[in-house]
Each structure stands twice: as structure tokens, then as C-alpha cells.
């Protein structure tokens, strides 16, 4: 091979770059999905909507709540699942049950490097 002194280091850099996740995680503990601290199931059967819906859409729901509460002045959210009105408030509704941000919100957000801007305004209760 010609120019092996240049090509081989280049290929080594390439291989190291593309196998980065393989060697970066060497020696670390096997990854497990973080456990969430959920409210007592005897007190609360389920969240204001189904778990699947909340997992997928909680961020959109909070965004919508912010808009309808702050901009339009509505304070109530009708939950079909619970047949009940809820106050459209992160602090007063969500965090009434999920009271510990670090043991609920942050666990998934940190694992997936998500940085929601809720806490730019809200104070952790």
C-alpha cells in the first residue's frame, strides 16, 4: 500500500470515531431504564389521562395548558378518563402527586438529555 503512514492513521481515526459509543461505554455498569417514583397506587388509580397518552403527550399537554391558562385565562381541563375537571397547573395538579421532580421528571429527561424549559419559570415545589 502506498502512503500507509498517512492512510492507516486516518483509518484508525475513522474507526475510533464511528465506534465511539462502543468504547466510550466500556467498563461502565450495564444500562437499565431508570425507575420512576410513582404516587401510591391506592390513592391514585391513574394519572389524569392514560399512561401511554401521558408518556407521549405530556409535553404537548403542558404547553397547551400554559397557553390556555396564561394567555386565555381558562383554568380547567376536562379529563375523559377521570370524568373530572382538573386545574391547568403544573405545580398544583401534576406535582401534587408527582411531588419530587428529581425522582420523577428528571430521571427520564436526564437519560435522554432533554432539557425542558418548564423550570425557567416554575419553582420546584
Amino acid at each position, binding site marked *: 500500500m*502506498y502512503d500507509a503512514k498517512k492512510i492507516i492513521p486516518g483509518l484508525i481515526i475513522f*474507526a475510533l470515531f464511528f465506534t465511539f*459509543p462502543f468504547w466510550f*461505554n466500556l467498563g*461502565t455498569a450495564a444500562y437499565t431504564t431508570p425507575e420512576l417514583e410513582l404516587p401510591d397506587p391506592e390513592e391514585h388509580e391513574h394519572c389524569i389521562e392514560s399512561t401511554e397518552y401521558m408518556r407521549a403527550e405530556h409535553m404537548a399537554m403542558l404547553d397547551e395548558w400554559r397557553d390556555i391558562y396564561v394567555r386565555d385565562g381558562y383554568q380547567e381541563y376536562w379529563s375523559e378518563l377521570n370524568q373530572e375537571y382538573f386545574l391547568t397547573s403544573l405545580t398544583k395538579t401534576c406535582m401534587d402527586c408527582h411531588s419530587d421532580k428529581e425522582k420523577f421528571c428528571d430521571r427520564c429527561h436526564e*437519560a*435522554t438529555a432533554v432539557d425542558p424549559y418548564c423550570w425557567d419559570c416554575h419553582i420546584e415545589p
Partner: protein
Amino acid sequence: MKAIYSLILVVALILIAIVGAGLLGIGYLFGVIIPYLAVLVFVVGFVVRVVSWGRSPVPFRIPTTCGQARKSLPMFKDKWNRLDNPGTKLGVVGRMFFEIVLFRSLFRNTRVEMHQGPHIAYSSSKWLWLFALMFHFTFLLIFLRHMRFFTEPVPGVFVMMDQMDSMFQILTPALYLSSVLILVALGYLLLRRLLVPTVRYISQPADYFPLFLIIGIVISGMLMRYIGVFKTDLMPVKELAMGLVQFSPTVPDGIGTTFYVHLFLVSVLLIYFPFSKLMHLGGVFLSPTRNLPNDSREKRHVNPWNYPVKFHTYEAYEDENRKAMVEAGLPVEKPLEEETEETSGEEASDDNAEKKE
């Protein structure tokens, strides 16, 4: 037709993933075996291809000269010629750097125009350069951003990329600017092939297929993030990704079909990569028209496998024939030693005198 053929191929790949992972539920094949195979084929195939290029000899300097050579004449003082026609290693490093990072040759792209007259005109055309640059850098950013699924804890640099990419906080989850930019760039690159007749004429399935494949990857990724029914729970996705890179693969429940489509298309891209024109990723570093210094006038480059030719130099020729040459009045570089220098000198001066008269 070539475009439709490529599109059908990509749609078929999507259907394979939907049927295989979604309907038949063979998540282990699509989530573990194919991705491992893809990474292996990609890295090994890439290395083999580059090594095979390395075996091709490039004995002579063949750089594209885009400016007047540095040392040719004192009147050429343009300092950019150090990059456009480098004569030194440093100049080559600079040329390669700007070539790889800023696509300087593409910046020189021109368009032929016919005017009334008829006149022909070559005008600057920067759109291809702009959108190509946009595509490549957003692709790099998206690739690096995905490392948040393959690392735990996620290093700050990837978190920062994520935040910068979603800094305008449009929509929830926040819209990545790179998602929009890459779609715009891919749209341009595709429409250019479809709508410009000259480019369309030379476009092959091998040109359309990677475009459609990458568009498919981007769209499936965006659907997973933004559109309700396609959304995928990220926690099992991260578990799958981490299982792959920690060599303890698991296929957790609750991963949506869209994810398998996304992963399958990425795997196909990785497998396709070493056999396709996408190898310009490695090839750009090995372009002899870019990575050689234009120093043919300063250094003698000898073809290493030349047959050892026996040269008959002019000096040897003159040594053999000097006497006859002097007798015939031919000019010689070294005067005859045995004969007196005066005679030959006088003859020469006589000739000069005659000419003057």
C-alpha cells in the same frame, strides 16, 4: 423512471420493516442482528475500500491547478494561489482543510447560460454549494446528537448540541433546526436532479437511492418525535441502543414500528455505504487532484516501477564525439584538452569578426 425505481426500492424497505418488526414482531432481527451486521459491514467495508484505493499508485503530481504556481514568475503574487495551487505540504493541508470543511471546489461551480446573439456565458452558481454544505453539516450534527441514546451519562457536549439545535423552542418537543434544514437541503438536492434537464440526464438510480433513503430516515425520525400516532417511547429505545453498544442486546417491549423503520433504513444506509458513491467520505481525503503539492518544477518525481533505462547523457555523447564536433565547427561545452586552446579560441574569434563585418 430511475427516480421512481429508487423510490419504490426505499418504499419496499420501509414495508419490509413494517411487516417484519411491526406485524410479525421479529424485533430481535431488526433491532439487534441487522444493526450489528450493518455496523460491521460499514466499518470493515470502509477500511477495505480505502485500502484498495491506497494500493493504487500515484507516482506523479496530478493536482488540479486552480491558480498560477507560486514560484513560476515573480509577477504572480496572489496569496490565494498558495491554496489553489499549493507547492508545499502546508499549502496542501490548507487546501484539503478548506476542501473538506467548506467544499471550496463546489464553490467554484459555474452555470452555462445562452443569451440572445447567440452569446454563451458562464456565471457563478452557488446554490449547490450552499445546500450541499447545509446538508452535510446538519447530517453531522444529527449524527452526533444521536449519541444521547448511546451514552450514559450523556456527555455535556451532546447535551449542548441538543440545546443549541432546539434553541428557538418552537413546538413541544422542541423543533430541531437541523431537522428542518436537512429537509430543505435534501429537497433542493432532489429537485435539482429532477428538474434541471442536464443533471437529470446524468442521474442514475445510485444518485436517487441514497437521497430517498436519507429522506426516509429523516422523515421517519421526525415522525417519531413530533407526530402523535408515530411517537415512540424513548426509554425502551435508549435501553435497546445501550444494550447494543454494551454488547448485551435486549429488545424491550413498547418500541413503536416507526422506530424499527428508522433503524432499518439507517442499517441499510450503513450497509450500502461502502459500495456506493457515498464513499466520497473517505475518498475526499484520497483525491490525488487535491492532496498532492504542485512541486513538479522543484522536485523530480520518478516513477518507482520504471524499468532501469540506460541513459546516454549529452555529456557522454560530447565526450565521445568532441573531436569530430570541433572539427565540424559545432559548439562544445568542454573544449578539447589535448589540442591547444588558442587555435580553437582564434577560430571562434575569427568567426565572430566575420559576422560583425
